């Protein structure tokens, strides 16, 4: 039964590759570098979606990484004991919220708020950057990045927390005995020791962000374009598949969507493998918390 996982891996790869055959034949490598998505002329390319996937995930990481790592540090090193357990539970619950609910909340609560409050502020403060220029109509790349950040924060936080907890107590004691303050202990004995593992946690979060579908689809605006400004609507590989699949007409259209799926699978699997390797080499066979 355990071998089922290999069957599943093979099945996913095979099925996507099979579905992509017509598009693979027609476009070849060109598919990856073409920015056309034109059902009229039956010409398809993945570039805008690869771009959108990378940009939205990057925004998510920029927001989520410092917050998550700081929270993990707070939870394992600095917080009073009675705060820890409830806070951990809150974070686990946040991770449990279905993506569609986050997207729904994002669309009806967060996006209007961003439009009314955050974006005008960003525009006036950072408007000298092209990234924060131009009109916004609500759903956009930045909104997608923010919702993704909310979604990956619990993962990065809890994996980082496990990593930090696996730092030997002796390391901390060594620093305390030198007369270090709590923060200094964290910095010299804990964080430097856990660097690699935390990096693994971040990459794991990245893998999740790259493939996230529903929440992104609902707030990104679903437009097959390269965004110059983060206020513009865009698309990711996952959101474009979700958005177009039911409307697809013609074999090549379908096949191209399969190929987007294949690209997405390739990217996320590579990223996940990288993350798993980092985490597994960090603390022996497993970084599960010691109950």
């Amino acid at each position, binding site marked *: 039964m355990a071998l089922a996982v290999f069957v599943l891996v093979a099945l996913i790869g095979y099925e996507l590759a099979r579905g992509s055959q017509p598009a693979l034949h027609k476009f070849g490598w060109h598919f990856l570098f073409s920015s056309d998505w034109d059902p009229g002329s039956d010409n398809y390319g993945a570039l805008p979606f690869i771009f959108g996937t990378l940009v939205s995930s990057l925004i998510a990481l920029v927001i989520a990484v410092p917050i998550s790592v700081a929270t993990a540090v707070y939870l394992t090193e600095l917080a009073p004991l009675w705060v820890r357990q409830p806070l951990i539970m809150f974070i686990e619950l946040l991770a449990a919220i279905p993506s569609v609910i986050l997207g729904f909340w994002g669309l009806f609560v967060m996006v209007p708020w961003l439009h009314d409050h955050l974006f005008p502020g960003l525009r006036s403060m950072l408007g000298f950057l092209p990234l924060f220029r131009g009109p916004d109509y609500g759903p956009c790349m930045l909104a997608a990045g923010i919702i993704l950040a909310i979604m990956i924060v619990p993962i990065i936080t809890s994996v980082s927390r496990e990593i930090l907890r696996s730092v030997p107590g002796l*390391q901390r004691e060594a620093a305390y005995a030198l007369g270090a303050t709590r923060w200094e202990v964290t910095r010299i004995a804990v964080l430097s020791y856990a660097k690699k593992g935390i990096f693994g946690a971040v990459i794991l979060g990245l893998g999740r962000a790259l493939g996230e579908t529903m929440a992104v689809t609902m707030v990104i605006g679903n437009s097959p374009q390269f965004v110059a400004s983060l206020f513009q609507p865009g698309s990711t590989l996952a959101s474009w598949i979700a958005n177009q699949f039911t409307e697809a007409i013609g074999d090549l259209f379908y096949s191209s969507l399969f190929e987007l799926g294949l690209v997405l699978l390739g990217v996320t699997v590579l990223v996940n493998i990288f993350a798993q390797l980092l985490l597994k080499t960090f603390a022996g066979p497993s970084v599960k918390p010691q109950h």
Partner: protein
Amino acid sequence: MPETATSPLNVPPESKAPGAPALAVRNLSVFFGKNVAVKKVSLDIAARAVTAIIGPSGCGKSTFLRAINRMHELNPEARMEGEIKLFGDDIYSRNVEPVVVRRRVGMVFQKSNPFPTMSIVDNVTVGLRLNGVGNRKVLAERTEQSLRMAALWDEVKDRLHAPAISLSGGQQQRLCIARALAVEPEVLLMDEPASALDPLATSKIEDLIVHLKKEYTIVIVTHNMQQAARASDFTAFFYLGELVEYGPTTKIFTSPSQKRTEDYVTGRFG
């Protein structure tokens, strides 16, 4: 409860070694939750001498040691009563931070614990850098001085920037001693510093301890009777959290006044 430093019953006059005591412990009790780890211990620890704390495991000797630089406070359940004065300063006084106490009272642990991500030299200087010493010349001087005192200089002087974990177990422990010495503490606490080392490395550490007492006050916890006999000037025997007997090492090992001490040092229990 300010108590005069005149000797309570269990502090023999012999322990009032040359000059004022480095540490004056009065009625020290340490609790973990409801358990008492150290019960009403009073003793003076002589400056520039080696004091060994011996006793069977679980007798409170490590807890006693950790109370001297307030390391026991890392356990949130821990609580203490009594008083410890370090060269006259009450280290548990309200306005004294544990951080300051630990800078004045260094510690070496049972298992060597160099910072694995740092080089040898960074391990030695980390305490100084925390304390705001940035002058490269001072740092370099102090590095050499500390490593020499820890009898490690000749072995590592050509590879100061190698990772600390590239050293052997015994070298790592001496590096930890050098790290503790670099901030020039007034007292050095050692918690079974050689218990994880082979005999050769152990004898190096013992030689080092004898050598270091010229400048430092050393308190060492050990369960190795020979080690206490060889390396220390004074010995305190703890049993079940209480101080049973305290005096010059020769006396404790040759003519102890308590039956329990005699049984322990002669290996009849423990």
